[in-house]
């Protein structure tokens, strides 16, 4: 087609468009403002709310710009007097449809207070709407000066749904835009929410019009993320995440290897993280998608159970002490044991939850200060470098042994979306997982490799496998790309920094162990055991020294996610009590061992030391990482490990996500429901 033909006129200016693009998309791309409420990027446009209407020359009435494709003959006007008046009427009708008690002015004082009283009786909150300041309806009412109330308010038909501890539903403020329905069905594909009833009775419902705990909801919270008004809200932060009290900090999620970008809402007065939202325009979790852990399980940060001071075992009991005393003791013991038994009897077990800077410092400490390479983690091998945008282009998608919708839910949403777009999914799993409900073929085992070969189609096959699953028959086939998603956020980082899995870690050979997330069931033969953790637990019970570590929102750093993306982790709050970042603990420990380390913060460790060692990471400084969505490293890390995938004797690997969630309010029921 001639290029000239693909030009639309908006407000007298000509803009080119791609075939299939809607008027709204062309306008947005060129910074022409058109208001929207029901429009949800990435899902089917419905034109339900009508606020995006525009006028077009020669077209009677109005057209909704979110659902009308741009055409070469169209001459569109977005803000004419008629359009503005129509929008004003739409807004007025929305405002009288429920308890919108923030912006209705120019009414008699008595009438106004009666209305406020009525709203207060409805939700008993004695507070203005929780969405105040970030409500789209409110913003549009101000923009279009909808100050009058010429019609009577409608009666609220449905009571507040406060059955659920995490998600609240306030029907009195719902404008039935349907964004939550499309977010649930088309973005996260959990398919729990739907429109129900009709006309004046219309309501957003779950299956059987049940409450959230009884429904199919998996608590991804995408519905809250997209709600333009105050109808859906996080109960944990209903009234303490006011826009004037909070500051937003972007960071990376610390749960699984997907590495979602989070927007932490920090209440400045309380100095606490009060709410977490996904970042709409970020990768890898675009459309603001998050999972139940990322969105709701953050309040362990401020749990009163956190370790805040070092503990030293004195006369058989762990007692609080100062950092000086604890670090001095560790250094003395370390020197003593090293001298007596040699460096090969000193070891360190790390969790791959820590930042690259932490892990690097730990590795440097054991390698250069103690001259031992006994520093290991217990995560199994992984095929990194998954590209989520590739999934929907696959001819066949195989998910082998991965309960992807539970372990890496955001990646699971991409798989489910690919299925909705027609990709053939094959699940190999002995269990009936949620993802197996979306599969065309569900194989219970891989005993007969030909069974799988029979059902695979096409020349673009993508396999996502759990790291412990044997997929040898698949690897032999051509046109097969194999990826896996790591359980922990920074397993790729640990491999990159040269920390190896320690499946041959011989506990009985160790006289001194420093554990930062390795879980030891026993300590026979170990003369001195140092454990650093966030919470006291059954594993810290057997330690000689327990050090309080800061958690991921309490210092700066970087992670590398399963798609080989280096992401920034940022400080949002101060650590509780005397808890310290891990990199700092090792710096101070090194000092006591007679080594003075120059780098004084995470940035210096990354730029001056890690970059020097790894040529691929060399070019990435914090300034570059701070722009946008982190940086993908095209190294194609193939972090694989030969040998058994069984844990060594005496080592435990509990679900540490579950442990962290258990220190959060109201997460228990979620776990009960999902697992």
């Amino acid at each position, binding site marked *: 087609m001639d290029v000239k033909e693909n030009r639309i006129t908006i407000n007298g200016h000509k803009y080119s468009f791609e075939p299939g693009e809607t008027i709204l998309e062309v306008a947005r791309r060129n910074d022409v403002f058109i208001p929207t409420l029901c429009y949800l990027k990435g899902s089917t446009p419905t034109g339900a709310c009508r606020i995006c209407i525009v006028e077009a020359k020669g077209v009677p009435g109005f057209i909704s710009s979110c659902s009308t494709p741009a055409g070469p003959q169209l001459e569109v006007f977005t803000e004419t007097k008629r359009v503005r008046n129509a929008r004003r009427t739409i807004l007025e009708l929305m405002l009288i449809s429920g308890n919108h008690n923030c912006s209705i002015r120019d009414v008699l004082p008595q009438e106004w207070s009666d209305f406020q009283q009525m709203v207060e009786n409805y939700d008993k909150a004695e507070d203005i709407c929780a969405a105040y300041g970030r409500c789209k309806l409110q913003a549009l009412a101000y923009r279009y000066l909808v100050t009058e109330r010429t019609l009577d308010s409608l009666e609220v038909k449905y009571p507040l749904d406060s059955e659920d501890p995490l998600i609240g539903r306030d029907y009195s403020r719902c404008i039935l835009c349907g964004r939550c329905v499309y977010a649930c069905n088309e973005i996260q594909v959990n*398919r729990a*929410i*739907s429109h129900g009833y*009709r006309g004046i009775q219309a309501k957003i*419902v*779950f*299956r*059987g019009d049940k409450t959230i705990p009884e429904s199919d909801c998996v608590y991804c919270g995408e519905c809250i993320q997209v709600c333009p008004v105050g109808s859906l809200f996080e109960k944990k932060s209903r009234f303490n995440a006011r826009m004037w009290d909070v500051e937003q900090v972007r960071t990376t999620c610390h749960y699984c290897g997907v590495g979602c970008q989070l927007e932490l809402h920090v209440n400045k007065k309380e100095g606490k993280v009060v709410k977490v939202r996904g970042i709409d325009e970020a990768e890898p979790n675009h459309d603001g998608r998050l999972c139940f852990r990322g969105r709701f399980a953050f309040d362990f940060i401020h749990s009163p159970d956190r370790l805040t001071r070092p503990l030293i075992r004195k006369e058989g009991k762990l007692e609080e002490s100062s950092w000086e005393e604890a670090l001095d003791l560790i250094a003395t013991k370390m020197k003593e044991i090293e001298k007596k038994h040699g460096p090969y009897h000193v070891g360190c077990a790390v969790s791959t939850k820590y930042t690259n800077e932490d892990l690097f410092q730990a590795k440097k400490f054991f390698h250069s200060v103690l001259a031992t390479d006994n520093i290991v983690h217990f995560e199994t091998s992984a095929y990194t470098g998954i590209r989520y945008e590739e999934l929907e282009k696959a001819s066949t998608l195989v998910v082998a042994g991965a309960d992807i919708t539970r372990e890496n839910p955001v990646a699971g949403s991409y798989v489910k979306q690919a299925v909705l777009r027609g990709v053939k999914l094959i699940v190999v799993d002995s269990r009936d997982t949620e993802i197996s409900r979306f599969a065309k073929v569900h194989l219970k085992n891989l005993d007969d490799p030909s069974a799988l070969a029979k059902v695979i189609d096409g020349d673009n096959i993508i396999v996502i496998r759990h790291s412990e699953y044997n997929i040898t028959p698949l690897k032999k086939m051509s046109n097969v790309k194999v990826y896996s998603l790591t359980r922990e956020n920074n397993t790729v980082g640990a491999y990159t920094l040269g920390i190896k899995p320690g499946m041959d870690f011989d506990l009985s050979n160790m006289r001194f162990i420093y554990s930062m997330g390795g879980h030891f069931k026993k300590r026979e033969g170990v003369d001195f055991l140092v454990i650093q953790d966030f919470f006291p637990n059954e594993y810290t019970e057997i330690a000689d020294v327990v050090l309080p570590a800061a958690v991921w929102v309490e210092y700066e750093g970087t992670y590398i996610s399963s798609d080989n993306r280096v992401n920034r982790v940022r400080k949002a709050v101060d650590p509780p009590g005397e808890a310290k970042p891990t990199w700092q603990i090792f710096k101070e420990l090194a000092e006591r061992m007679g080594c003075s380390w120059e780098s004084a913060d995470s940035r210096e460790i990354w730029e001056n030391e890690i970059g020097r060692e790894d040529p691929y990471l060399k070019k990435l400084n914090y300034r570059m990482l701070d722009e946008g969505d982190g940086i993908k490293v095209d190294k194609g890390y193939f972090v694989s490990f030969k040998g058994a995938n069984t844990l060594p004797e005496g080592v435990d690997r509990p679900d540490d996500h579950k442990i962290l969630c258990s220190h959060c309010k109201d997460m228990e029921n979620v776990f009960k429901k999902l697992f």
Partner: protein
Amino acid sequence: MQTQVEENLTASPEDLALMEDVFRKNSRENSLMIYLQQVQAQFGYVPPYAIKYIAERTLFSESRIYGVVTFYTQFSIKPVGKNIIKICNGTACHVGGSKVLGKKLRSHLKVDDENPTTEDRVFTVQPVACLGCCALAPAMMVNGRVYGKLTVDSMIDVVESYRKAAELEVV
């Protein structure tokens, strides 16, 4: 119209056979309306286990099917009566006093808008916008048969004749 559905997700073997039948008859995948219409015809309503059954065999989620069922008046999520009485509320019938007739009928059968089915599940009363037989106003329809030029007495007589027929069938 907050309707509490009794939680009955396990179908009896007979019900399951009926459901299998619905699916055998319609080989076309994902024709939700047809499945639902057949279920409604076979069971007299759309039970929760039917929604679950359809969801397991199609691309539709249970919540979506529930949404569709509650949207259309042709479907009911509550069991309906053996005889369905449609009271016409069209203009001609309204002028002819259909409001009074409806009120009398409901009080006679002890039903209301929230619970339109009698306890013995013999009758369900549904208001309709127009039956299209305005010359016979005021009118009602019982199981597809139209009764016109009603008075309160003649209406009750018709209803009672159906009740008698139902009783005879039971005996």
